[in-house]
């Protein structure tokens, strides 16, 4: 489970470190409210990437939340549009993980969901404010922007859980390095795409080779 507090601190400090204002750091955390995509956007904005690359990369990182939306939707079918909008806005890795376990075992409750999702929001936005204000006080010689790849390192490690994800990460990273001098951050795009495809291929291969043996036993 990703710690929200350090994530918020980095989202604030790194934003300021890359030249964004405190208001923009807070804007990211309140309007976007999705740490990993924010850090990617901060990193790319600091490298003068084009608007399309910044927005596209951030949104690709957040596509995983389609999965959460699909998985949690049946429990919230009866809610009003306004309530479902609130559920959607507050949907994060942590809020999803905590709620879905509860919903599968007990009853569904909007209040349980809000009871987990809202404190996460408060801590994350509060930590962003602290990180941004503190980051603005620190000497500019301090390589604050290095906190972004370090945070990604800490977040990527738990995302590598099985053979397909190991291959996805290895291929994604290698292709991105090979394509590092390509224009328009094409190396990133090529790395991400080839990583996902390679992971799927391995997943498919593992499936076809392991399923028959499971069937026999």
């Amino acid at each position, binding site marked *: 489970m990703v*710690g929200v507090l*350090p994530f918020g601190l*980095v989202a604030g400090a790194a934003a300021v470190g890359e030249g964004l204002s405190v208001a*923009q750091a807070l*804007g*990211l955390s309140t309007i*976007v*409210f*999705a740490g*990993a995509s924010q850090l*990617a*956007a901060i990193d790319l*904005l600091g490298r003068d990437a084009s608007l399309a690359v910044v*927005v596209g990369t951030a*949104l*690709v*990182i*957040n*596509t*995983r*939340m*389609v999965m959460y*939306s*699909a998985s949690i*939707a049946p429990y*919230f079918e009866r809610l009003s*549009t306004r309530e*479902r909008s609130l559920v*959607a806005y507050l*949907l994060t890795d942590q809020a999803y993980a905590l709620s879905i376990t509860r919903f599968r075992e007990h009853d569904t409750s909007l209040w349980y969901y809000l009871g987990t999702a809202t404190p996460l929001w408060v801590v994350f936005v509060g930590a962003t404010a602290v990180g941004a204000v503190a980051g603005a006080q620190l000497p500019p010689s301090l390589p604050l922007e*290095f*906190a972004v*790849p*370090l*945070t990604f*390192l*800490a977040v*990527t*490690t738990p*995302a590598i859980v099985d053979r*397909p*994800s190991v291959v*996805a*990460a*290895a291929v*994604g*990273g290698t292709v*991105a*390095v090979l394509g*590092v001098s390509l224009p328009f951050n094409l190396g*990133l795009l090529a*790395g*991400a*795409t*080839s*990583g*996902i495809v390679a*992971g*799927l291929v391995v*997943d498919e291969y593992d499936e076809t080779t392991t399923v028959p043996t499971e069937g026999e036993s």
Partner: protein
Amino acid sequence: MIAWIAILLIGVGTFLIRASFLFAYQRIDLPDRAERALELVPAAVLSALVVPRFLAPEGAVAVVGNDRLLAGVVAAAVAWRTENILATILVGMAVLLGLGWLPELVSLIGAVSST
């Protein structure tokens, strides 16, 4: 200005992603393969973002004299062992800063020992 436009666009896009199935007219189950592809997105994208930041911090692949690579390797070990974000950041930062100060430290020791 581009930052604010980016923030708004990412915000709207992310909300639509989160809202997608919550506002579907009927229950839809994601196909297995789509779900697996989505599960692989963080590993592939984050790795594609992060590896060049350590291996090619200045835009070209560099191994010798690359403080960020060394700091990254140490931080990766910490991330692997502890799965703690704060510990990973602090150790990585400390190694990078320490390596940056190393030449000065060496010359300082040299100056002190020669007197």
